[in-house]
């Protein structure tokens, strides 16, 4: 999915090391489709034992409705490789995530779904939490082409994105399609491989 630019309010979740088991608990991984995961995003933090939304959990508050940016604590998305985590975040409505760091597999999974992980320095991260604490309606602007985040006080901060992922997101490039253009190179590589296993033997 393409990503170019967005301007949005932020949903702050300052906890560090939020793992993908929290984002989408394992019991929802028995599905064979990608659909219907958004309702169970952060399920065990979001609903009580009777399945009713907890009023004090941020995703249940009006401020989360329509927000496209999740402002997350350090090392967001650690643990399990489940791509159900970015699927659930996107189905809830998020299009970008801001943190000081993201877990490797989660970050790769997010980029492949058009969910942009924006890495900012610790001081900017702290300032964003302060800004959203004093006014929940403040907005950030994320411009992928220029790799800039504009903070509520008008500061422009650059963020890193590798050039290939950026190109794929901006243009909506399909990675499998890209790789399939290189079938000749793949075949040549296969011709010189030695010591292959044969799982079908």
């Amino acid at each position, binding site marked *: 999915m393409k990503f170019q630019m967005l301007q949005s309010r932020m949903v702050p979740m300052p906890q560090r090391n939020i793992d993908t088991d929290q984002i989408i608990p394992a019991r929802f991984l028995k599905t064979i489709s990608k659909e219907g995961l958004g309702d169970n995003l952060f399920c065990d933090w979001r609903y009580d034992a009777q399945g009713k939304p907890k009023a004090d959990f941020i995703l249940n508050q009006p401020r989360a409705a329509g927000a496209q940016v999740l402002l997350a604590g350090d090392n967001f998305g650690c643990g399990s490789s489940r*791509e159900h985590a970015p699927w659930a975040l996107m189905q809830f409505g998020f299009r970008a995530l801001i943190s000081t760091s993201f877990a490797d597999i989660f970050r790769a*999974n997010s980029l492949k779904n058009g969910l942009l992980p924006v890495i900012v320095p610790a001081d900017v991260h702290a300032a964003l939490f302060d800004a959203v604490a004093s006014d929940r309606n403040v907005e950030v602007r994320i411009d992928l082409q220029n790799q800039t985040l504009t903070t509520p006080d008008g500061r422009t901060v650059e963020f890193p994105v590798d050039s290939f992922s950026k190109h794929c997101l901006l243009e909506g490039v399909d990675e499998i399609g890209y790789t399939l253009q290189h079938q000749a190179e793949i075949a040549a590589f296969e011709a010189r491989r030695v010591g292959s296993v044969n*799982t079908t033997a």
Partner: protein
Amino acid sequence: MTIIEKIWDSHVVYQQPGAPALLYIDLHLIHEVTSPQAFQGLRERGLKVRRPDLTVATTDHSIPTTDRSLPIVDEIAARQVAQLEANCREFDIPLYGIHSDRQGIVHVIGPELGLTQPGMTVVCGDSHTATHGAFGALAFGIGTSEIEHVLATQCLLQRKSKTLQVRVDGALKPGVSAKDIILALIARIGIGGGTGSIIEYTGNAIRALSMEERMTVCNMTIEGGARAGLVAPDDTTFQYLHGRPHAPKGAEWDAAVARWKQLVTDADATYGRTITIDAGALEPMITFGTNPGMGIPIGAPVPEPSQVSDPGEREALQQALTYMGLEGGKPLAGHPVNVVFIGSCTNSRISDLRTAARLLAGRKVNPKVRVLVVPGSQEVKRQAIAEGLPEIFRAAGAEWREPGCSMCIAMNGDSVAAGQYSLSTSNRNFEGRQGKGARTFLASPLTAAASAITGVVTDVRTLL
């Protein structure tokens, strides 16, 4: 060059400046939970699986560990298992399914079948794929989009990671095991400490480990944030592989060993970073919190939030202790446990079961504790039966189950009730990991067996 760079370089199919490398994948392991959407993607594109002969599937995550002659009661899980069977049929992928005599946890059967070999690139839609690094393979977990990419092209688009050497020297003391090495490393670097890196485990303490112990170490690499961790192959590796169903035979074996012996880090190679661990100073480790980095030596007190200066860290610790129902400043030893789980891709191999059985032989588990022993594969189960281990477990009062992921991820009905304490040989203690509201202490099979006997968190050295 490091072994990591050697394996990387020998798998680059194509690289455009500025773009990630197109990396060839030698072995792709598949299971029921993360693959259905990838196969659906192939169907929508009208693509085939490029190399079914480099792909293998099993069912492990969502299947019951009870009597396999009965149908799966959970209809959603049953549908997922049936979908994997249908996908494997449609795309000609060999499947060690629920009734196969080679079924098992994907990271147990790959090595067991001799499919995982030195110098390979191995991927699976599962973060514990790092396990296969024990053979000197570059092995890492991937998401479902990447599964589809590998199915379609047998390649992945990857950027080079940094390298991190974890050097472990010295001799482990009695009662201290491979699990304690990796729990100690994660406690030291934190759950995000290895992000962006691939680890090479070196040092004479690593060399002294068996293949199964090396798998335990590599398995939990991801819990320190690193996607892959490996051990350069040596005679221990070759001996393990020799004669396995998919290992090379005859002259091919000799040629393979000669190739594998080149897979060492050169003396003049440098790593991005090096961490050293003194094996002789390690104690049995246990986690007290809600991520695997929250670990302490078993005799040490649980950290006190008031002693932590960083506000974010203090809050995280307080939140973890609240969830766990624990107070800072007290040791865990003596804390009651309700469930003991011996299993998972970390610790369900035959040596893990032997270790637990040796301690449980002639003893009884505490009547207040439910003990579940889940072998990693049908092969492990057969070996355990041949050695009389199930009788030992049953006589002690433990449950002996069919192979699978079971209570590690608790999506198959094996779970821990809310508020209960589980002492588990698995790899994750995240909130709700073993069941909604469940509280997990991670530790070694030795600590698990000792605690099963006493009913409380126990330093195994008091029973040795």
